[in-house]
């Protein structure tokens, strides 16, 4: 028997019992709808979770804190070395190499913090504006983007060297006007949606940085003397960062090239006669490509004796809750699909009872039992298939409606200011549709399996029995 003819016979039989076919298909539609919608809600809440976690911090990043609080802080002059055994390890280049070699680590991003007391920083004509309290970080600028720092104005030069610096979004507000009793201006909403401007436009001014001689007392204005010409630098602001309150440095700090920062640190210590100072990094951000390895990297770094932090543990906890919810909903959906499967089996058995004589006749006319089996399997499979297709279409509609209606209702939770976009409540990716249709078809086939076996066992003698 040709395959096409088997299909034809199936359709004729399904069509003959339109209402029953329809009701059975309806069962599958409800079941597959339940499954698809539940999974899509799960995917939606997962996406929302990932999104809000991302708002809290980069999921791929493990942050390691060194045991050095500010590169410039003078180490106990007595030199009581803390590097003896049992002392906390240093987050230095050697440690960095070890971290880089960990499985899953793609990029490391060390930060060297220089204490604001070490320098005097001015801007404007005649150094009119003086930075009051501003943190300075040495970084590798080429990795900024990877670690989520975004540039608001200007652009990074190929080589920052000791000519260029980067401003945090509000670094310019840290400057006070020395001509007006050190008056400062804060970034404030003026009430019409615009903000107060700082005294100068960072990209247009030259910044003057001098290494302080802190051995001598400051003058009456609180200004230290610098170490002379070779301790003074004229710098250009290459870029201003976009503010990100998860990253302190992107707001109120100044960033320098790591080499320049190390040079300044050395200069300060030389100028002030400090020999025993700490050159290890303040903090290292580690970028782990595979989210599943974030936890193990964090553990390994902790093992090395550092404090490490990542979103992984929070993520695990939150995701655990979401998964529990999904399992519950998924279980309910699975039950409805199971009921649909019983429906298919029931329909097929009914139809076999009705068609007992027909099956006998087909056998007498020389139909192979394999063909009879195929007919019943395909009928059942088709009920599953069409149920899956209709279920998918309805699920897509439900999903669209949920996203349109629900998005507004939950609004606050689902809207994230900076993008202005909402994370959909229900997400139906293409693979889910394919999977749902394939699964419904499979359910149909499995449900049809035992009825089909029953059908092939019907004796040809049934053909001549008279009821």
């Amino acid at each position, binding site marked *: *028997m*040709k395959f*096409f*003819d088997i299909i034809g016979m199936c359709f*004729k*039989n399904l*069509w*003959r019992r339109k209402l029953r076919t329809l009701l059975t298909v309806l069962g599958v539609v409800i079941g597959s709808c339940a499954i698809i919608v539940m999974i899509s809600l799960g995917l939606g809440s997962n996406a929302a979770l990932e999104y809000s976690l991302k708002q809290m911090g980069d999921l791929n990043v493990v942050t390691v804190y060194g045991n050095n609080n500010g590169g410039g802080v003078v180490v106990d002059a007595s030199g009581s070395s803390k590097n003896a055994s049992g002392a906390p390890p240093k987050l230095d280049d050697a440690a960095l190499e070890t971290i880089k070699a960990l499985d899953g680590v793609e990029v490391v991003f060390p930060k060297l913090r220089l204490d604001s007391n070490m320098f005097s920083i001015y801007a404007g004509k005649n150094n009119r504006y003086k930075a009051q309290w501003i943190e300075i970080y040495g970084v590798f600028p080429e990795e900024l983007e990877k670690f989520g720092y975004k540039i608001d104005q200007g652009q990074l030069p190929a080589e920052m060297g000791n000519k260029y610096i980067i401003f945090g979004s509000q670094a310019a507000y840290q400057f006070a006007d020395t001509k007006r009793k050190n008056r400062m201006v804060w970034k404030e909403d003026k009430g019409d949606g615009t903000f107060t401007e700082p005294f100068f436009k960072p990209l247009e001014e030259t910044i003057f940085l001098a290494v302080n001689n802190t051995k001598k007392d400051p003058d009456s204005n609180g200004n230290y003397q610098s170490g002379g010409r070779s301790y003074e630098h004229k710098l250009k602001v290459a870029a201003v960062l976009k503010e990100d309150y998860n990253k302190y440095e992107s707001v109120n700090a100044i960033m320098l090239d790591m080499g320049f920062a190390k040079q300044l640190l050395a200069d300060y210590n030389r100028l002030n006669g400090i020999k025993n100072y700490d050159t290890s990094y303040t903090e290292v951000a580690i970028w782990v490509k595979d989210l599943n390895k974030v936890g193990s990297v964090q553990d390994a770094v902790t093992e090395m004796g550092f404090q490490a932090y990542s979103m992984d543990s929070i993520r695990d906890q939150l995701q655990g809750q979401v998964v529990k919810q999904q399992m519950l909903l998924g279980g309910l959906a699975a039950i409805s699909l199971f009921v649909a499967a019983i429906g298919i089996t029931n329909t097929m058995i009914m139809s076999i009872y009705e068609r007992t*004589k*027909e099956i006998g*006749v*087909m*056998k*007498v*006319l*020389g*139909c*192979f*039992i*394999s*063909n009879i089996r195929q007919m019943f399997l395909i009928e059942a499979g088709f009920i599953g298939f069409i149920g899956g297709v209709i279920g998918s279409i309805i699920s897509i509609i439900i999903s669209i409606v949920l996203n349109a209606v629900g998005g507004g209702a939950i609004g606050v939770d689902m809207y994230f200011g900076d993008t202005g976009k909402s994370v959909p409540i229900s997400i139906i990716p293409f693979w889910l549709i394919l999977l749902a249709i394939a699964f419904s078809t499979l359910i149909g086939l499995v449900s049809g399996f035992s009825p089909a076996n029953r059908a092939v066992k019907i*004796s*040809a*003698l049934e*053909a*001549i029995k*008279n009821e």
Partner: protein
Amino acid sequence: MPFIEVKGLRKVYRLGSEKVVALNKIDLEIEKGEICCILGTSGSGKSTFLNMLAGLEKPTKGSILIGGRDIAKMSEKELAKFRQENTGFIFQSYNLLPSLTAAENVSLPLMFKGISKNKREKIAKSMLKAVGLENRMSHRPNQMSGGQQQRVGIARAFVAKPNVVFADEPTGNLDTKTTAEVMELMVRMCRKYNQTLILVTHDVDIAKYADRIVHLIDGNIDSDKRNESIVPKEPLEKEDGKTINNACENENMQAEEIGQ
């Protein structure tokens, strides 16, 4: 060698502890092209015998050779193949599939054989023409009279050019006039291709259409004789003036195309 050879055939049904001997010990040989009637009263074992000849039931004892092959020893699959190639079956209650049209019903055996839709439709149509139903092609069984349904059944039994056609009380549900038409049609179809017909009936008048009458009594062959008063074979007048003979000619042409 005879076409059908039955040796020591016995069928016993067990109903609990009770035994019903439906067929005691049957020996019979039937030649190719013979129209053989199994005649007997109700309960004499006619249907049981026919069912075993057609391979629908396994004998308790004995063998049935058709074309030299023992059908009692065939597997389900072999049997299906054997039926596709060698047998046709005409039922008392027609047994057309209700969801199919007349043409589709007639082409069923060809479909099971795997013949393409176009080809089998053509053959089925010429068969239906041959049984005088050219204007009932796309009618469903419930839109036809009993006589018409049985003619569809006959067309279906002969469509694959089987070597042997089995018929169990084919006219049992028909009136006298229709019975005559149907019997005439069956006999002519058989003669055309020298096909063997095994006909089961309790009606002596119907037995007259056969070449040979085997009389069963209580599961035994009581008598087995040539039919002396065989019904004449003049062409039967049809309403539209066409003769069944002509219709057979027509069918002849088409059936050649099947090729074996």
